[in-house]
């Protein structure tokens, strides 16, 4: 999978590149409008992640260009502009997702995977981890052959952890993914704790309890080995 990341903040760019390379993507980057423009014109990408405020131009122009060239690339906009209007105009121009800055890396990772699954046929509709299978289209989880009855939030948490498998995912990232910014930590961490407890119980009932690991004080990990 080939990714293009257009972002002018060098530190943020390095950070995202490091994170995504670990996921096994081939990553290229551009730090301003012109460089982004050139790369989009000359190469094919599976996903383009574009910041809106770029030196030398508006990221939205790049989105427009990609769509008018009938590019098959998935487009994720990252921007500090967070009004509903900004979001709508980005999505209307043909972006597949809109991520408000600051975002956390597991969230970006999960969104990239979701876009890739929609855009390409190379991603199947299920995530298969041996005893545990997640059917994405039907939002169904099968553990050792039986379907688990999960609440919506439990399913969301499991999927988020699975998309970031074998990595520690912090409570904060989960909270932001599930509820956005406005929820108080004290409340959301209680929520997460309770959901994970139930989720683990349900998984353990079907001998899949080992998938979920707690990293004390930090967060959780979906472990496949």
């Amino acid at each position, binding site marked *: 999978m080939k990714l293009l990341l257009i972002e002018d903040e060098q530190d943020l760019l390095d950070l995202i590149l490091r994170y995504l390379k670990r996921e096994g993507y081939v990553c290229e980057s551009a730090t301003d409008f012109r460089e982004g423009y050139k790369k989009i014109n000359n190469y094919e990408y599976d996903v383009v992640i574009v910041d809106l405020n770029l030196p030398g131009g508006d990221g939205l122009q790049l989105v427009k260009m990609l769509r008018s060239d009938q590019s098959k690339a998935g487009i994720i906009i990252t921007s500090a502009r967070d009004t509903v209007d900004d979001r709508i105009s980005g999505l209307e121009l043909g972006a597949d997702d809109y991520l408000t800055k600051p975002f956390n890396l597991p969230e970006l990772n999960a969104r990239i995977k979701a876009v890739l699954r929609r855009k390409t046929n190379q991603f199947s509709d299920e995530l298969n981890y041996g005893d545990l299978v997640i059917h994405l289209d039907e939002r169904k989880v099968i553990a050792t052959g039986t379907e688990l009855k999960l609440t919506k939030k439990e399913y969301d948490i499991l999927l988020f952890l699975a998309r970031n498998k074998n990595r520690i995912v912090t409570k904060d990232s989960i909270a932001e993914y599930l509820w956005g*910014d406005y929820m108080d*930590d004290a409340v959301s961490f209680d929520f997460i704790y309770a959901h994970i407890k139930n989720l683990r119980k349900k998984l353990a009932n079907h001998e899949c309890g080992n998938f979920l690991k707690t990293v004390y004080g*930090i967060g959780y990990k979906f472990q496949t080995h």
Partner: protein
Amino acid sequence: MKRLKHLYSIPFLVALGVAVILIKQLLPSELFYSAVWVVVIPLIIIAIGFRMITYYRIQTIRNQLLQIFQTLEEFDVDEPTKVIFEQSPYPIFNELNEYLIELINRIRATYQANKQFTQNASHELQTPLAIIKGHIELLLQSPHLGEKEITSLATVLQNTNRLSKINSSLILLSKIEHQRFSDSTKVDFSRIVDEVLQNFKDLIQIQEIDVQKKDNTPFIVEMSETLAEILIANLIQNAIRHNIEQDGFIQIEMDSNHLKIKNSGKSITAKPKELFKRFKRESEVTESLGLGLSIVQRICEQSNLHIQYVIEDQLHNLVIQQV
């Protein structure tokens, strides 16, 4: 002002009296009466004329002052409209006006710079904070970490998260203050409460809190729906978090002009009014930022709502009313 007017005419009366006595002593009586006609009557006429002119002048000065007061009263530091004083026939007033306009412009500039600074500061902090958080997350994935290192990282991460939460709350506060939520519609609070309760359903169940809602007539307010959601979410979140461990309850009542959230809770030491101030919080719940109620108060101010927080017999009552 009134007393001064009377004082003004006293010297004239005294002067007149002295003149009459002097003339009567100096002149024979037949001449005296003609002197009265020649001197005193014109004097009286002059006095009255003078008095009228003074009166007229005082009135114009008073009106001009009133106009200035009125213009100053209408002046809003946050509104970009230009302050205009009327041209006055008295140069001193024009000077005063010029001085006031200069002062107003300076106040506005300082205010704007201040506002801009708070806004920029929080925005500029966002990216560095995100980068710090990202790097901690990267570090956490390293396979060579011992337990001690992980504990250290956990502390760094927790505090960074706290910083970024404070920051995003401050950004939210400044957005409310700058009226970035101006999408005013008729908001039915009964529906908003239902939605928020639905979102918190799991947590309410986990904590075994009994929730009751009474709404015979709905509480409808013309305001931003987003702000209404943030307002109610904040209040219900508080009612859940500060509730007691056993037999806790939340009662929500409303009618056409008020909404009341009543919940069981721990007693607090701070005065309820104090809790609306920024960074003021009951020390017991340390994860709390102390910004939630400030946000609530700002939203109420912007939306012409009056909020009251009373604690009676360990029951917390929050009442929101239309002004």
